[in-house]
């Protein structure tokens, strides 16, 4: 099986670009689905533990003057999720609501989880997330520069930016609610995907030493990517297996981060093979071209 990884780089970038642009352009139109961690407000999870009518629950919520979206959750729709907008005196209203729901369905306090987050926290969380991503990328860039060369470092970090954008585009396109675990997921993918890229670069470094004089950079990239392809696929596959298991069996809070994690793993594997390595070859050949022309 021969795939021209390096030669068709424009196609690979186009595929990603379309996806990322679609997702990012949607943000100013629909906005991101920010959870209470970012937007402030309250989140209530109730284990009703019996079949119930969500409309009745909505009526209860409206009775207390609370503005919220109410939805079924859990395996058999026996749980409920309430996302509540922040307002004055919300704490007391929530207490009343809880009491009313407990009475109606005969529930114990242990069957409720309530998160209330002030608007300050959301802003801080966003700033922290951005800083964490910049600092992690910077440190990784320095490390790869030190262990490989400057060009590899820049290309590898570009691939990371790509992965983060893919995840942002995905949550935007699918309208997935994001909370603080999403920040953790993005950084995890940054760490995971760089691992992928490095395995390919490690092989390029090795092949470049052995065949650098005989083969073009594009050929070296194609050879190295093909040689590490089984490993790339198997690793993505084994990691995907455990994350899919998390998604299938996990509770709501786990699913919230398992979903972007799945996308990130696939995006990370894609960017290592189709973005990072080809870009490295293209950059090398571009930087040599002017010299070749003047020589001719």
């Amino acid at each position, binding site marked *: 099986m021969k795939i021209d990884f390096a030669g068709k780089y424009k196609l690979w970038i186009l595929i990603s670009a379309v996806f990322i642009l679609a997702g990012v352009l949607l943000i100013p139109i629909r906005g991101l689905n920010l959870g209470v961690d970012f937007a402030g407000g309250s989140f209530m999870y109730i284990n009703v533990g019996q079949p119930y009518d969500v409309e009745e629950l909505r009526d209860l919520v409206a009775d207390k003057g609370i503005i919220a979206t109410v939805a079924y959750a859990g395996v058999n729709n026996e749980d409920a999720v309430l996302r509540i907008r922040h307002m004055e005196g919300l704490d007391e209203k929530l207490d009343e609501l809880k009491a009313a729901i407990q009475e109606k369905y005969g529930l114990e306090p242990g069957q409720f989880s309530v998160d209330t987050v002030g608007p300050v926290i959301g802003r801080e969380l966003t700033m922290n997330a951005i800083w964490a991503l910049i600092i992690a990328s910077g440190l990784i860039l320095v490390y790869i520069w030190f262990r490989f060369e400057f060009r590899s470092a820049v290309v590898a970090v570009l691939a990371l930016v790509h992965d983060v954008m893919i995840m942002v585009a995905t949550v935007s396109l699918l309208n997935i609610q994001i909370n603080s675990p999403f920040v953790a997921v993005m950084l995890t993918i940054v760490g995971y995907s760089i691992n992928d890229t490095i395995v390919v670069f490690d092989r390029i470094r090795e092949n470049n030493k052995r065949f650098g004089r005989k083969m073009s950079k594009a050929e070296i990239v194609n050879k190295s990517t093909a040689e590490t392809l089984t490993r790339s696929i198997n690793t993505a596959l084994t990691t995907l297996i455990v994350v899919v298991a998390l998604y299938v069996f*996990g509770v709501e809070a786990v699913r919230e981060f398992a979903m972007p994690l799945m996308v990130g793993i696939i995006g990370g594997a894609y960017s290592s093979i189709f973005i990072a390595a080809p870009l490295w070859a293209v950059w090398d050949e571009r930087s040599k071209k002017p010299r070749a022309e003047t020589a001719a």
Partner: protein
Amino acid sequence: MRTKSAVKLSLVLVAIIILGYVALFGLQIGLYEIVPLGNEVRQGLDLRGGLYVVYEAQTEPGDPEADRQIDGAMRVMRNRLDGANQHEATIARQGERRIVVEIPGVDDPAELADILAEPAVLEFIGPEGDVIITGRDVSVAEPGFGDAQRAVVNFELHPEGAQKFADATTRYVGQAIRIVLDGVTISEPQVRDAILGGRGFIDGMENMEAATRLANLIESGALPVNLTQLETRTIGATLGANALEMGLLSGIVGIAIVLVFMLLFYRLPGLVANIGLIVYLLITMVIIVASQVTLTLPGIGGLILSVGMAVDANVIIFERIREELRLGKTIRVSVDTGFSKALSAILDGNVTTLIAAIVLYYYGTGPIQGFAITLIIGIGASMFTALIFTKFVMKNLINLNIYSNRLYGV
């Protein structure tokens, strides 16, 4: 050499089985007892249920008193928690002006969160608007029953306060004294006689519960600074237990599928990797228990994710060994070169992942830190198993003279 390797391998295998058994079920030898690892793991609030609150102290920026005030507030909060029998609760400072309180397994979390943030400034105010005594003058406050079996708070004053109280009650016989808590009058008793003994009671309590609550607030003292609640998270105990169960189930299913995949794809080395994976899990769990890391829901996620990464190191090595075998090299040489050539990729890959995990730990709070910690522990443990354990087993396996490329999936 063959027998020696066979003995070594058997010993390691037996050791793993014994350790695995002890970790799962515990062991009792005479007086000594080893508890199963699972029982020793410190569970986060999201798994056992409880209350997590972030308070912010309303101090002026650059106020030199702020540090002392926040420390004082934390002491008062500790008193109040002890008064409410929440001895397992933790109170921690976060950054400049924040206090994080975590209380496992409470029934009425919202109520408790409010009590903690109550300023509890108690004042006895005379008819002329003068402050007679404050909460600071009180040495003992406890709930009790007054006239007609109504709930009251009995209090005793320090000698100095007792003197002030005696003077005032002598002066105001026949008049009313207001007892004010945080600006709200809770009781307005008539002074019938001068109170000289430094003892008294506050009536007007709704019930015994309210009296107990007020007594605790008075005894714990007033907060030296006002607090606002920035973030409150309450997790129902039932929901927490459910999350733990589902987390474990997904872990077991995910790992089982990975074990089968590795065995089918890599044959004999796959089996070695699988044993390595079990060793990896043992090491990670022991480190988590030994270093008292709190396991949160995202932490379980991090753990399961690091399983995927632990497998990766083995995959890199085995792919290398296969390549060398395809070039027609002997198994012994292939395994040696496979390991040495895979080393740089594994090392560089793990160091960069470690960088991301450390940054995450530094910038994250609460459960996110739990995630970062398990990831860091996982990366360390996976490097150890792949580079030391798997290598040891593979080398000794070769000495058993099992020469068949089919066993290596070539």
